[in-house]
């Protein structure tokens, strides 16, 4: 890897050279030590300005298509838009099929839009370290609306609330009754709930489940902001203007309450956590591969070997970065 060129890439990236941005993003998703070098430069004296919008929700609920329609709305007003689309890594082959982009390809030639696909590379929580690091890079480069689309695994995916200013949870008709909605997890975290595919049958019923629970304050209420519930049909282009309006209202709320900078702070702390998590997990998997080939069967001796390796690694951690 050509680390000595990082400064050169950053200078070019500031002039919106897409190739240089693409390269820097690759550094961020390579080894932690490479990512560290980029982050160390871009996070110096950088207050953070971009509005980060997180999209999550079950697979197939139309997150990518919704983002694509929102881009149409935002580019009219000269925003610079970045999309970080995260898809899962196969636990079997470690490969990935990154297909979110398909729904947004119409924007691929727009100079004010940058779309990057990321795989989770085995980390839990739906958000990878690389995804969050990429938010920082786009923010640094002056992209002012940053969409993160997470893998949409359902109930367990709540990291996004530490990263995004505005969290949108997309769902669709016919995916369960109010018990499903009440379950803890992803359904609790939204600032805006979107019932997409509302042109479909059963949408009225699902809408009522959701609105009952939101109205009664059973999910997602926070001081000064009552979660919105919107009906959209991304495919038919319905409800998109309303969605944009709700997003902007939430931004105003964040700014007026001082949450805007609070969230950036939280995001950077999360970045540190994810960095360490990735570094340790990478090391652990590496050592585990070695352990597999050893001829030791006793549980506690195996554990002991791994523990010692990790301890040594931590002792030399400063050399690593």
């Amino acid at each position: 890897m050509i680390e000595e060129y990082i400064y050169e890439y950053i200078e070019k990236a500031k002039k919106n050279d897409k190739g240089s941005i693409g390269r820097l993003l690759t550094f961020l998703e390579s080894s932690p030590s490479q990512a560290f070098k980029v982050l160390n430069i871009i996070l110096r004296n950088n207050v953070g300005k971009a509005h980060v919008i997180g999209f999550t929700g079950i697979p197939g609920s139309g997150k990518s298509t919704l983002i694509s329609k929102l881009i149409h709305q935002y580019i009219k007003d000269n925003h610079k838009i970045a999309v970080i689309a995260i898809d899962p890594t196969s636990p079997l082959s470690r490969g990935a099929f990154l297909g979110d982009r398909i729904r947004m390809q119409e924007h691929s030639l727009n100079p004010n839009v940058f779309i990057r696909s990321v795989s989770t590379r085995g980390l839990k929580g739906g958000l990878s370290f690389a995804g969050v690091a990429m938010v920082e890079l786009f923010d640094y480069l002056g992209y002012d609306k940053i969409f993160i689309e997470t893998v949409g695994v359902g109930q367990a995916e709540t990291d996004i609330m530490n990263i995004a200013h505005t969290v949108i949870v997309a769902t669709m008709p016919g995916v369960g009754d109010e018990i499903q909605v009440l379950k803890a997890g992803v359904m609790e975290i939204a600032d805006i709930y979107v019932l997409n595919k509302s042109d479909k049958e059963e949408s009225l019923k699902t809408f009522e489940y959701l609105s009952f629970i939101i109205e009664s304050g059973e999910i997602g209420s926070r001081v000064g902001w009552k979660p919105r519930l919107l009906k959209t049909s991304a495919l038919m282009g319905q409800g998109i203007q309303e969605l944009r309006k709700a997003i902007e209202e939430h931004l105003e709320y964040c700014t007026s309450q001082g949450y805007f900078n609070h969230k950036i702070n939280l995001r950077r702390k999360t970045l540190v956590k994810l960095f360490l998590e990735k570094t340790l997990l990478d090391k652990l998997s590496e050592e585990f591969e070695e352990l597999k080939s050893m001829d030791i069967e006793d549980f506690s001796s195996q554990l002991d070997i791994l523990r010692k390796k990790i301890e040594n690694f931590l002792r030399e951690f400063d050399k690593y970065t």
Partner: protein
Amino acid sequence: MIDGGGIIKNSSRPIKVLVAKLGLNGHDRGAKIVARALKDAGMEVIYTGIRQTPEQVVETAIQEDVDVIGVSILSGAHISLMKRLIENLKEKGVEYIPVFLGGTIPLPDIPEIEKIGIGKVFLPGTSLNEIVKYVYDAAIKKRMKVRD
């Protein structure tokens, strides 16, 4: 299928491949099967979907920073489309990204396509292992070329 056959040992990141359908033809079964085989071999595959222009494919390759581009064409317009693709890669300064082509390509056209700068043409009946192996080798060569 050779699971894991596409993983570079000791590399900090997997091979990243763009699979694209160029031109006015929507038959994408072949492209999807190739994409899946590459994924099963441990690579990260971006699929653009159908009816892409050469300009879109090049821009996507740049933003995604891919190691290899694979194109599927069944429409008969392969020579003109591939010419435009390669010209565009050169224009954008990324002609070091290797390109391979798959589809119903008449044999007499292959020498001309290779002359344009396409790394390899795969015809119907090619084994998936052969494609995985090509992509693996091409990606390694490309990373060495750009000292990456």
